[in-house]
């Protein structure tokens, strides 16, 4: 077992993990942060996207030990003081989710997209940038609308 420590959603955390423990397992099983989902488990679907040191990655394809010392943000870290993040609010407003399984990854990918490309995003850019996030309800239409609106309010 290896002792690791990280800052997750602004809070210092530590734990002991096997080398093979994935970041998503550490978040869900050790820390109880089950907002980050495991969908395909093959780094295709993006349900497990979290931010590590400010960039979006697929946490099902990263070793927890390799993230020792990192700053991690999960979907639980978006809302502040009981108030939804503008991107979460936009998903609610525009019905950007159906079953909701892909939503945590969609939100984290969307916030990362705004961080990289700014608040004014056209539809083509959003659709292209969502290549790594799959919605099996095929609810992309409203996801794209939600991201466009959420970006403007960030």
């Amino acid at each position, binding site marked *: 077992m*290896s002792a690791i420590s990280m800052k997750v959603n602004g809070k210092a955390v530590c734990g002991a993990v*096997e*080398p*093979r423990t*994935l970041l998503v397992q550490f978040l869900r099983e050790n820390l109880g942060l089950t907002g980050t989902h495991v969908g395909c*488990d*093959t*780094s*295709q679907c*993006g349900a497990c*996207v979290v931010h590590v040191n400010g*960039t*979006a*990655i*697929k946490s099902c*394809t*990263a*070793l927890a*030990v*390799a993230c020792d010392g990192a700053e991690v943000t999960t979907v639980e870290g978006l809302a502040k003081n009981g108030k939804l993040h503008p991107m979460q609010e936009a998903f609610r407003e525009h019905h950007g989710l159906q079953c909701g399984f892909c939503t945590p990854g969609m939100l984290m*990918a969307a916030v*990362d*997209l705004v961080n990289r490309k700014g608040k004014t995003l056209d539809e083509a850019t959003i659709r292209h*940038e969502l*290549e*790594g*996030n799959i919605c099996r309800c095929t609810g992309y239409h409203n996801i794209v609308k939600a991201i466009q609106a959420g970006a403007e309010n960030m």
Partner: protein
Amino acid sequence: MENFIYHRPTKPADAVKAMKDAADGKFLSGGMTLLPTMKQGLASPSDIIDLGGLGNSGVEVGADKVTVKAGTVHANVAIDKGVKKAIPALAALAGGIGDPHVRNRGTIGGSIANNDPAADYPAAVVGLNATVVTSARSVPGDKFFTDIFTTALKDDEIVTAVEFPVPKRAAYVKFPNPASRYAMVGVMVAELKDGSVRVAVTGAGPKVFRVPEMEKALEANFSADAIGGIKVKASGLNSDMHASPEYRAHLVTVLARRAVAAAK
């Protein structure tokens, strides 16, 4: 995934030593291929030597050469202003690999060391006449990719950087598999500063290959029409549920023509 002993060396020499000491070690860079492979049980190394601790990341842009350190993630090559100006084809290629989250993690060193037949970077290394710098030596791009998933690297040798000569003009065009975004076929066409032309094809065969007939025709006349009648042979090309060898052979000419037209 089977368990393994984890190493995170901070010096290349320590990484090489850890590999020498391991029973069946594997170097880990971004892990975008190795980790899924291990999760599926297709690889179960005794030791993982994580190269992330080396801090070997970054791009240097000179007048004649762009050097990309091996640990540089695709996203950083894609957005680098110097690369965009010196070799826009290289920045565009890096920006088309996988998806945004994969590009934030996958590295150039990992990609070329893995040598997936459908990976994009091998087309850049061969097409731009790059040199692969390793912990032991420099290897010309043409000699680096030896067979499917096989390179000139020795077991305990690490890629440290890739040096790309700045070409006169170049473009990379790929037909991505719509599900995986890997190249069904990808073609890098480059006119180098000495006037020579390179056409490097990935995705179509077991490993990246050049098309000398197209190169000769383009050296005489750098236009899409100059290669319209040149076809590569379908025999020996990859065949899967997505495309037959004949279809891939057809795509090589189509994409090469597009790359010539787009070269800048």
